[in-house]
């Protein structure tokens, strides 16, 4: 297991947002996280990425404790994410957003830039090149220089994914990446996710689009009221009576 959650819990005041969540994500696995609104899915992502500390339990990456670390340390260890309500850097262009994402992979020390060392120029060009390639990968190469606040909703989501990928993460956390997208766009995101997993990265995918989840995930964890209802392959989860009752009931 690459990423492990072990009895993870988080309460806010008196509200238990997440309770004893236990599941694991293997390398290269696409792991879905589904559940009704308010089930604690985003809170779980916040816990893994370090924006919030668990009040109980442990989170491990390659056996090393993540909980309690600051979010920039967690990112350095190989976990990056997108956000439910899209948090791009609004004034920066799409390309610049992705270049920021590449922060962890850039090496040139500052002094080189001060003396105009050729290595610095090369490094900068290479970072721009990689960022451009990532934008191409999400189909936005032609919008690279556009101010990110001017992009459409779907485009912004794709830039956010490119930005998270720029850090070369071992684990990619996606928070409802296809919300508000057309069917065609959802298909291309699904393809991108499979592609990313083939590279050996793990993907933890929070989603409401069940068709997407069933189609692209290797395993699925179902949350309800902060508790894990079920955890297994799509087929098992789909047939689990507790899950059907709590969640899939309406459209089973």
């Amino acid at each position: 297991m690459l990423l492990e959650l072990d009895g993870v819990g988080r309460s806010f005041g008196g509200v238990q947002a997440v309770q004893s969540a236990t599941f694991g994500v293997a390398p290269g696995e696409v792991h879905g996280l589904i559940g009704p609104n308010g089930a604690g899915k985003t809170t779980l992502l916040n816990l893994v990425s370090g924006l919030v500390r668990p009040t109980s339990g442990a989170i491990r990456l390659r056996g090393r404790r993540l909980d309690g670390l600051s979010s920039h340390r967690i990112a350095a260890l190989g976990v990056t994410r997108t956000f439910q309500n899209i948090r791009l850097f609004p004034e920066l262009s799409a390309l610049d957003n992705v270049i920021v994402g590449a922060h962890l992979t850039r090496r040139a020390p500052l002094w080189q830039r001060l003396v105009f060392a050729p290595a610095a120029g090369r490094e900068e060009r290479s970072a721009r090149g990689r960022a451009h390639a990532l934008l191409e990968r999400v189909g936005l190469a032609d919008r690279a220089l556009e101010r990110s606040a001017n992009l459409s909703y779907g485009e912004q989501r794709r830039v956010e994914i490119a930005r998270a990928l720029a850090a070369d993460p071992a684990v990619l956390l996606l928070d409802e990446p296809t919300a508000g997208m057309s069917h065609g766009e959802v298909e291309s995101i699904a393809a991108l996710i499979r592609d990313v997993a083939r590279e050996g990265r793990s993907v933890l995918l929070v989603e409401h689009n069940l068709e997407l989840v069933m189609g692209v995930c290797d395993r699925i964890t179902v949350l309800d009221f902060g508790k894990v209802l079920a955890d297994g392959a799509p087929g098992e989860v789909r047939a689990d009576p507790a899950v059907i009752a709590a969640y899939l009931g309406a459209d089973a």
Partner: protein
Amino acid sequence: MIAALQELFLTYQSALGFVGINGLLALSVYATLSCGQLSLANAGFMAIGAFASALLTQHTALPFAAVLAVAALLPALVAVPLGLPVLRLRGVFLAIATIGFGEVVRLSFVNWDYTNGALGLVGIPQRTTLPVVYLLLAAAAFLFWRLRGSRFGYALEAIREDEAVARTLGIDSTAYKLGMFVLGAGLAGLAGALDAHLTFMVAPSGFGFGRVVEMLVYAVVGGITSFIGPVVGAAFLTLLPEVLRALGELLGMEAGPLRLFLNGAILLAVILFLPHGLASLPRLLRRWRERRKGAALAA
């Protein structure tokens, strides 16, 4: 002709000196603004640099370069233990904490007999020359210029736009913010030393809230999208009173209130209508001209 120019130059020599010094001060504020931190501590750092340099000049035989180095390093050192707790505060709380620091520094000097309390130090020899001021200003500007496009520069912009998200991309925002806070402190201290050795005196009253507000205004009026703005703002606002004074004499008006009024009015106008400062004027003019051309073509 040459003689007339020379005379003009001599008359405005100190004004030009102040343009350079204020440029450094504006850049010192820009240092923290560039990563989204509104720090108002720099009057305090300037005071430390100014007093330290004056004392060194009066009591030792150190060359000016060494004095300047100390004037920059001492506030920078103070900035480290100050910055660590204070930079964790958000927005307006950081502003207030740093205002508080500035006041504490000022009041400390007011109450310190060694530096003559409220009267301060006088009779400081003039060691500041225009070439030195502009060399240092150019060096600071060069540093900021090279920062852009670098990993460091991108990190600063990210922190300014959304610090929490920047951290999720591996950016250690605390370290960067502290770095810029220390840089700002050093620049302010340097400016303080240059100022002390240009005006022959150092008094605590010159380092109060009003002073740090001035620096902030230079930066904001000039525009904080890039390092050029603060320098432009400092030049504009330092030379404006000179122009206004000449104008006032022409019009026979009371200088003080009018200058203050215009300062306030210009600041208000810029913040309301030119959010990216004076430095954004060329870009805006270009866009306006293009739109007019476009409209003319479409007509």
